[in-house]
């Protein structure tokens, strides 16, 4: 059973702990192995304080990835041992966030397999293999980041651009909906989110000339409720010359204006994928998500203007999908240094030192951006978490070196926060690259980068885990890793953060100072976000070790659950 933190000195923390204790009381009686109780909206809403389940891809609607259980803590984590290992049929890249409902775990693999497991033993309950259509178009690897759960259903997006609903008890498919046309470059690797009667999902395809969106579908029928196009019909913007941090982006505005006059607005093939879940604010009934790069990635000559709302934080109305506000980090991006890591809702200090509802985003640029939730405006950005050089050198025909490389900074990997310490935790890549531009016309759903970003093989690559004080933007601590980091991170009320590496190491750090407290060699790349849960009074940490296609980390097929040794 979870033990609750006694460090509730701040009002917001007191609220979290209070709701956590209530949720614990409500769910503990029914937390029995095999009890496939329906997931109610109340459970989803109060997930931030639920120390038994792990109900959302990023822990809760605010996407804090802060797990409230503290049985496993800085003092005993050295005794963490594998409780069980489950091997999936697919030995390939794994990015799944395990979801746990009353002792039943749902995980996914590459190529859209779904497994229901006994979270206490790892025994398979059911296995669903999606009947993949003949056409899939995806970058970067046949990934899937997991399921959403609600009622008696499990929801998953697929590589052939479908949304499917499965029976949580049996794994049988209940319905499927074609979200968009796979042949044109649309695909799904993100996990959906469920709010009330809606399944929310974005789309991949920024590398294929799609027009991005977030859509809401009916949980019962799969019918479309609303669509928000991440690229408006007027994508021009304000002709911004500097990025969010004030750097000159070297745009030729006059040339772009001339191109716009001759070719028109490029919105139909402008990209703007949404790779990760939205944060949901039920109080204001808004959602917050980030929009990825414009298409083609490196060639701005075919897409004059700011390319709204690519590379942006965007908020829309939960019920209608109507635009509320946005903030663009990089206008007219030609480096693919876009916005991918899911935003986090939490209280932050504004410029005057007052606590306001805020949004955090870890950028590929290597900055953590801090926003006001009410109007999306930026309060501050953090110190750079990775080396930055030659920003913003334009891509050339020969290839121009600039840091960060196109994978970041922070890739799609979700961050976590500790709301008591007021720290965000991000995993980063340092991967020096050259940026090459080569203009080619829209290729009908084929890869459309407009050039290439190439790793400079002779230069050293590495990664890091970085804690940032989001009230000041200062780096609180930083730990370097042997390889560029991709996957995700989890913080817990036990004073820990957990994250894995491409070389198979899965580690626990002291969340206050970055001291490494525990490690385990998983035998394949640990490049997926960890989750935590409690069954019959025993807290577990679980993570997938399947490697990563994008960075070519060793593939595997293991779901590994850890708990304290007796």
């Amino acid at each position: 059973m979870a033990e609750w933190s006694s460090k509730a000195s701040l009002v917001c923390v007191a609220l979290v702990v209070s709701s956590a204790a209530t949720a614990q009381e409500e769910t503990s009686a029914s937390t029995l192995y095999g009890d496939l109780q329906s997931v109610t909206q109340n459970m989803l809403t109060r997930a931030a304080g639920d120390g038994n389940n792990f109900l959302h891809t990023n822990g809760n609607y605010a996407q804090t990835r802060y797990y409230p259980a503290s049985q496993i803590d800085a003092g005993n984590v050295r005794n963490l041992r594998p409780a069980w290992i489950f091997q999936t049929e697919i030995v390939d890249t794994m990015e799944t966030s395990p979801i746990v409902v009353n002792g039943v775990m749902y995980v996914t693999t590459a190529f859209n397999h779904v497994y229901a497991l006994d979270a206490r033993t790892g025994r398979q309950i059911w296995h669903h293999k999606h009947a993949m259509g003949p056409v899939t178009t995806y970058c970067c690897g046949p990934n899937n980041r997991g399921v959403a759960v609600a009622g008696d259903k499990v929801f998953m997006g697929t590589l052939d651009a479908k949304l499917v609903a499965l029976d949580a008890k049996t794994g049988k498919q209940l319905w499927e909906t074609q979200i968009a046309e796979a042949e044109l470059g649309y695909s799904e690797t993100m996990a959906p989110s469920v709010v009330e009667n809606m399944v929310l999902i974005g789309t991949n395809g920024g590398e294929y000339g799609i027009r991005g969106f977030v859509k809401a579908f009916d949980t019962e029928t799969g019918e479309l409720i609303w669509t928000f196009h991440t690229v408006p019909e007027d994508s021009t913007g304000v002709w911004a010359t500097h990025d969010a941090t004030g750097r000159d982006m070297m745009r030729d505005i006059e040339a772009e204006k001339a191109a716009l006059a001759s070719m028109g607005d490029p919105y139909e093939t402008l990209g703007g994928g949404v790779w990760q879940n939205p944060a949901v604010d039920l109080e204001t009934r808004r959602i917050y998500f980030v929009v990825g790069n414009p298409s083609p990635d490196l060639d701005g000559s075919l897409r004059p203007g700011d390319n709204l709302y690519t590379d942006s934080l965007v908020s829309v109305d939960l019920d209608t999908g109507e635009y509320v506000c946005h903030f663009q980090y990089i206008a007219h991006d030609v480096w693919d240094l876009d916005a991918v890591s899911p935003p986090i809702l939490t209280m932050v200090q504004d410029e005057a030192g007052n606590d306001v509802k805020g949004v955090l985003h870890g950028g590929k640029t290597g900055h953590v951006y801090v926003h006001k939730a009410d109007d999306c405006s930026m309060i501050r950005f953090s110190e750079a978490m990775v080396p930055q050089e030659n920003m913003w050198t334009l891509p050339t025909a020969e290839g121009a070196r600039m840091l960060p490389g196109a994978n970041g900074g922070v890739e799609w990997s979700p961050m976590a926060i500790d709301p008591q310490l007021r720290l965000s935790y991000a995993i980063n890549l340092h991967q020096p690259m050259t940026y090459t531009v080569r203009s080619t016309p829209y290729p009908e759903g084929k890869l459309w980068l407009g050039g290439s970003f190439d790793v400079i093989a002779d230069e050293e690559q590495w990664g890091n885990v970085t804690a940032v004080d989001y009230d000041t933007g200062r780096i609180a601590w930083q730990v370097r890793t042997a390889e560029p980091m991709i996957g995700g991170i989890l913080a817990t009320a036990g004073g820990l953060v957990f994250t894995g590496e491409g070389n198979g190491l899965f580690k626990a750090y002291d969340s206050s100072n970055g001291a490494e407290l525990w490690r385990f060699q998983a035998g394949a790349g640990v490049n997926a976000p960890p989750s935590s849960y409690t069954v019959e009074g025993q807290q577990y940490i679980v993570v997938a070790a399947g490697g990563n296609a994008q960075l070519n980390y060793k593939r595997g097929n293991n779901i590994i659950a850890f708990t304290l040794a007796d």
Partner: protein
Amino acid sequence: MIRRFSAGLAAPAALAALLAAAPAAAKEDFVLEDEVAVCTGCHGEAGVPVEPDYPVIWGQQYFYIFTQLRDYGAGRRQNDVMTGIAAEYDRDQAKLLAEHFAGLAWPDIPSQTEEGDAALAEKGITGGQCSACHGKWQGDSRIPRLAGQQAGYLARTMEDFKTDVRMNAPDKNSTMKQLDDATIAALSRYLSDLDIQ
């Protein structure tokens, strides 16, 4: 069935026009078995091509074969033999052929690597981020299987991308320019020696 054809760099406007070209009319006397017989003349009776720089198409990905036939037919990929053949097929006929060959077993073709190939190939793979799309080289949908493909074909294809002879996957042109000849040769042998897992 595929021979080298130096078409040079097509102008973007010409490519755009090709992309918008009307779909081919159906080949009137299309009989699948007859068309397959034509293909086997070069691609092999048992899936083993008759020349080392002809590709294996038995067991290749359905949508990749279909896309290549469409690209040959529309002039987006050029070859003096394949262009003429593929131009006669409409979408349904191209799909029938793609389904046929995708359903056959990939042949086992002996291959040979040289000392140092693996290290050089891995360096090239890292630099080009090849696995981001090609995964474990087994192919999927529009991404072709590379594992076990003929080394000669792989080398020629990479060279064709590098020298702008092949233009129907334009981003490969930029990527392949980053690879030197030794890396391309090593990568070709390395991939031809792999089996899918």
